[in-house]
């Protein structure tokens, strides 16, 4: 399921893009990039993230999830202030991130859960502020089967900016002028299942798929 979502997200990345990948499903997106023409940015200070073989692991080369990564040819290192200047300054083309909830306007919550200690935000708010395009990759429902797409987020929002695209194992939604449009039904899913498991109002637009739901 995760790979299905990651593969679909990878299709959104244009050649030459600078892309920041969040933790979880977003990390898998890199596995579905055919050519080497995408530049992966990690906010802890590396442009040119690539995978690393077990034997070549350097404990001082990690991504934002503190997992070991490799350095691509043409890579560069920089400090955290410069890294976030790249993000806030709109020099990063796409950020792909996981969320806890997304609402009818495309606002997301991905940094805090009420009732639990609010202990970490990391770069989430900066990415929402500055990345030119935001793609959310997530499971459609949480572990207890409740929808993660809600009329309004019940968790604290990450930004007042809407995301651009939401990809789940069931559907792809585009956010247009603060409204959700279901634009694609994922393999082995149906519009009935999407309707049942989406607790936010959405419109349907299949023009990208020849007017068909699939």
């Amino acid at each position, binding site marked *: 399921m995760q790979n299905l979502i990651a593969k679909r997200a990878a299709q959104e990345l244009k050649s030459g893009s600078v892309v920041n990948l969040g933790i979880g499903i977003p990390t898998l997106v890199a596995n579905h990039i055919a050519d080497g023409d995408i530049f992966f940015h990690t906010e802890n200070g590396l442009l040119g993230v690539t995978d690393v073989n077990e034997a070549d692991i350097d*404990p*001082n080369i990690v991504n934002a999830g503190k997992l070991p990564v490799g350095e691509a040819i043409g890579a560069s290192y920089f400090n*955290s202030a410069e*890294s976030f200047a790249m993000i*806030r300054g709109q020099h990063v083309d796409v950020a792909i991130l996981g969320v806890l909830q997304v609402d009818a306007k495309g606002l997301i919550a991905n940094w805090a859960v009420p009732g639990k200690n609010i*202990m*970490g935000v990391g770069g989430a708010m900066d990415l929402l502020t500055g990345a030119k395009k935001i793609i959310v990759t997530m499971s459609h429902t949480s572990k207890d089967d409740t929808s993660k797409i809600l009329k309004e987020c019940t968790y604290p929002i990450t930004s007042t900016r809407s995301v651009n695209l939401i990809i789940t194992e069931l559907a792809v939604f585009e956010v247009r002028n603060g409204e959700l449009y279901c634009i694609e039904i994922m393999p082995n899913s149906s519009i009935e299942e999407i309707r049942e498991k989406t607790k936010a109002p959405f419109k349907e637009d299949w023009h990208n798929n020849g007017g068909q739901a699939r």
Partner: protein
Amino acid sequence: MKIFSTAKEAIEKLESNQTIMVGGFGLIGAPLTLIDELTQKDVSGLTIISNNLGEKGKGLGILVNQKKVKKGIGSYFTSNRDVGDAYQRGELELELLPQGTLAESIRAGGAGIGGYYTNTGVGTELSVGKEEKEINGVKYIFEPALTANVALVRAWKADTLGNLVYYKTARNFNPMMATAADYVIAEVDEIVQPGELSPEEIITPHLFVNGIVKAAKILTKDGVKSIG
């Protein structure tokens, strides 16, 4: 600029109730030898400015468990559960900032800037109580600069003047922190003669640095190891 032969001497001037910046993203690029020495030192009431407060029982995490830290200012404390527990017990104050705001506030502090406006966090729980201002139709919040009494940073190589270069993603917050404190100590793998580092590659010029010491604890694939 002083070259210290031990981490103990390097942190001799540190006192209780000081504000200390500590470099690193988790343990990566953290001055592990200086932190270890700080855990041996009889200090309390410290305010620590660092992205994380170490990992559970490691790095700055030890300092938290020893109750030497009064307040932590950082962006991500989640990875060390002890921090949350100490916070719940009312033993530790925390100030959470977006990671880019943390970095920029330290940069501003080192550059003599009092504060700045950013649109990161506008309209969220982290903007509560912060001054809001609209500039060219965009909403921003004011963030004050951060400075400290002491900065403990991790670099790769230093020359004997105190010029520093960094290694890979271990650079992270270290170069900004080296500019933003009254007293800056760098822990390094190697100390070389002036001229051995290319002037083009020096990231932190020596005027920012008060002292250097060689690392005795390093991060390896298998965790933190003592060397030398």
